[in-house]
């Protein structure tokens, strides 16, 4: 299963129609507006915001989607990512951060090894080694995940 099939299987298929071109389906899911439930609890549409984690058996996201197949998780992104990495079970994940801008499919990568964790965002990909202490010049995600770990004594 390649990156795009994995993404669609856990997340994309709940947001857009599927064709026989997984990377095109992934592009549609990552660039279009989707049916959500807004802060007032009313149905609305929005581009992707917040964060999501795609797993082999599904996905969770900070946004409340109208689709009940994507679990809602209100935690902040670094808390969610840090806990996911702490409970690493060797199965692939995709870590996504959104900012309403389309997330290019070239920035979509699975994480399959804690030594090369990849945080995918519209602006680029942050890759870091979760098994090593944070070095000078580390990226925003790695520094914040480390802060959360220290704060929570994990």
């Amino acid at each position, binding site marked *: 299963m390649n990156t795009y099939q994995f993404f669609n299987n856990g997340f994309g298929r709940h947001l857009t129609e599927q064709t026989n071109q997984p990377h095109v389906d992934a592009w549609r899911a990552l660039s279009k507006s989707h049916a959500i439930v807004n802060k007032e609890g009313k149905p609305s549409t929005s581009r992707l915001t917040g964060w999501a984690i795609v797993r082999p058996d599904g996905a969770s996201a900070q946004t409340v989607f109208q689709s009940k197949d994507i679990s809602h998780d209100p935690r902040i992104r670094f808390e969610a990512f840090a806990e996911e990495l702490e409970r690493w079970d060797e199965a692939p994940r995709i870590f996504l951060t959104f900012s309403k801008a389309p997330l290019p499919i070239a920035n979509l990568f699975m994480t*399959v090894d804690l030594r090369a964790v990849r945080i995918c965002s519209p602006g680029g990909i942050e890759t870091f080694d979760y098994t090593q202490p944070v070095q000078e010049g580390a990226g925003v995600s790695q520094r914040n995940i480390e802060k959360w770990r220290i704060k929570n004594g994990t």
Partner: protein
Amino acid sequence: MEKFEVTAELTSPLVIGGGYFTLDALLGGVLFENLGDVEKAHASIPLRCTDGLFHASAANLDSSVKRPISFVANLRADHSLHPDLILKNKDGGIHRRLGKLRRSDFGQVLNSYSAFDTPDVVWYAEGDPEKTERLLSDVHFIGKRRGSGFGEVKGWQIEPSEFNGVTGPFDEPMRPVPVEQFKGDTDSLKVDAAWRPAYWHPENRAVCYAPRGLT
């Protein structure tokens, strides 16, 4: 088929946009410029290829000299961008006005890369060293931002080697190799990566064993 080592001596920093910058990618790019056909270019790469995997290593660079570098490209309407290439809004128009006179009306794109202040780059491969040398002899710039003077090559050296470009002396991967095809040390790093040309194409990605360093 011979095992050989290719060294590019550089006179300006090498700029890379991500990935592993394998020798087959470099040769495929050179061939595409000559032939203008992607399939023909890939079929003409003078390196050993097993089930789609070229015996050609990733670029070996000193990662301690890596630094981030960004450029802003001003894409001008009627010059760099044809309206047919731009995604349209629901009314069939382009999302924002593109003007020709003021810089603020240009389509500005920020491109971020990594720059390596390294004196040389080394690749290991198995294939035809003479054909490889002929192809590279006309290459004077490598990597991204070649038109801005980055990645200038002073000279190429090709020498016999003992490595095949796929696995190194400790059975470690020297390039991205799909998990199913890898016969080396399975404690090596695993990543989701492109493993065959065209490296930019989403369908050429798989979970691979890959060297540490460039990503």
